[in-house]
């Protein structure tokens, strides 16, 4: 069978396993939808108390939903190699004639499906509980920005996952370090780029993160009622991020795998 077909089958199978595993644990899904509402609700009430424009509540909803994806990229994808290693699955993947990216892609696809369900839940809660209104005039623009944001995010996750081929807990610490700073720099709950109170150096730093452009684009097309024309910059940057990170992931995964095999750490546990 053609190598490409084998990889496609492997990716689909991995996605199916992840979806099935999630569906069989619905309590987790419900918790995932409800728990973020506390921080989202807190920010919405704060903005309302400060008299911020109504669109800010929508910004918070968008940020809150995208946090789910970022968390998933870090813990459900990048760190997944750590868990696979601990239970003995990583060895099986690496003995099989498949690309490591096919497995990661499968994890990403499986996650996206379950995460989208979660996103719908959060948006629904936002609309019902906080009376937040969406203003979508260009659904295609929404689809493009959303897809590109996820593509760049999960490609970044593939790059991070390579760290777990060599390290265990050290990479885990890096994941932990990346949670809060990215929340802050990407502007999950408030806009960073073009915000006059945010120092320029921070605005520059935020431009290095694909999520920043994804959030900006989504806010424009979901809350501010803008179309594709107004998000061309975000679309271009996200395309560039997606391609660059995907290609980088391919090389970094290969390099780290080889290094791990050389140092004997590829399947070494309890690191």
């Amino acid at each position: 069978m053609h190598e490409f077909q084998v990889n496609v089958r492997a990716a689909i199978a991995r996605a199916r396993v992840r979806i099935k595993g999630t569906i069989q644990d619905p309590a987790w899904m419900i918790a995932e939808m409800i728990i973020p509402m506390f921080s989202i609700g807190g920010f919405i009430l704060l903005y309302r108390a400060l008299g911020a424009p109504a669109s800010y509540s929508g910004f918070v909803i968008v940020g809150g939903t995208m946090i789910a994806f970022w968390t998933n990229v870090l813990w459900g994808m990048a760190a997944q190699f750590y868990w696979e290693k601990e239970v003995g699955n990583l060895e099986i993947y690496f003995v099989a004639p498949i690309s490591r990216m096919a497995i990661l892609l499968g994890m990403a696809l499986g996650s996206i499906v379950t995460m989208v369900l979660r996103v719908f839940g959060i948006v629904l809660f936002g609309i019902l509980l906080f009376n937040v209104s969406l203003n979508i005039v260009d659904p295609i623009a929404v689809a493009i920005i959303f897809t590109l944001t996820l593509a760049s995010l999960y490609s970044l996750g593939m790059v991070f996952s390579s760290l777990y081929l060599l390290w265990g807990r050290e990479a885990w610490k890096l994941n932990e370090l990346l949670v809060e700073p990215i929340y802050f720099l990407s502007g999950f709950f408030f806009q960073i780029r073009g915000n006059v109170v945010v120092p320029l150096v921070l605005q520059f730093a935020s431009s290095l993160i694909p999520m920043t452009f994804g959030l900006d684009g989504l806010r424009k097309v979901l809350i501010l009622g803008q179309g594709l024309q107004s998000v061309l910059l975000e679309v271009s940057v996200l395309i560039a991020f997606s391609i660059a990170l995907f290609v980088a992931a391919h090389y970094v995964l290969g390099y780290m795998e080889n290094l791990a095999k050389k140092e004997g750490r590829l399947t070494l546990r309890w690191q």
Partner: protein
Amino acid sequence: MSNSVEQQKRKVFDLKTIEVENVSRIFRISSEKEILALDDVSLHVKEGEVFGLLGPNGAGKTTLIKILATLLLPSKGRAFVAGHDVVKEPAKVRRVINLVSGGETPGYGSITTRENLWFFSQLYGLPKGESMKRIAKLSEDLALQEYLNTRTHKLSTGYRQRLNLARGLINDPKVLFLDEPTLGLDVITAKRIREIVRNRVKNGSGNSILITTHYMVEADQICDRIAIIDRGRMIALGTPAELKKMVSKQTIVSIETQPIDGGMDFMSSIAGVNGYSQTDEPSTGRIKLKVVLNEEGALQNVIHAVSARGRIFEIAKSEPTLEDVYIALVGKGFE
């Protein structure tokens, strides 16, 4: 590579499914400490052969399997599987191999046995029909049918290991690596796994199996040839009969005695003793000594030395086993 070169390469490796040439592997533990896990090992496994790597924990057996399964790079030397270099052509090697590690329970506990097996079949690109056919056959061979629709986190250790073996066979690998496949299993499951291993290579299937074990009886029962490895070095190689022949001129004695204060280290200094091993017998509170003597006359020395330290309950001569070969070569048992 041109066709003729490829054909020539295949021909050379036709009969040798695995070829290991002077392979060494060093693990760097710290900037000052290194461990030589494999030391200049050379061996080959023929087509249709069950080849055993026998040795105590830490001997280097798993290290060699990991190198052959493309999970680890050798520090020195070369290795080929089905004619493909494990370092330069890992993708080609992976198409014809699979690996089963004992004591592992890979897969996903939240899905069923059937779903897990289907998932693993997809890592080899099997079409659905073929995949289901193999799952049915393997579950029958391994008596897993009853548990096909059970989530695997509910399976017992023995059945998880059966699932693990089924997974290893799902792609019908030309070369199967089994790393301690019966570790910690009950007698019935271990026996079943040994039968499957034997059946896999018979009838001229051309499949080969490289198995590591520290169970001597298991190695004796299922392996066509065995390499004994100790501290990274291969110290003997041959069929079980050939290996046992190595100690045929020596005398093997089993002695049952009470526990002796200060241990059994004195045994090494008795003239004529080639090696010994001891096993605690918790049910009787006694110790069973296996002693390999260079000459029968040395038995008197042993009896004298042991009886001076504790009571002897039983002495019996025994037929040579692989354990005796190991004791004769290394001077002690696997303990």
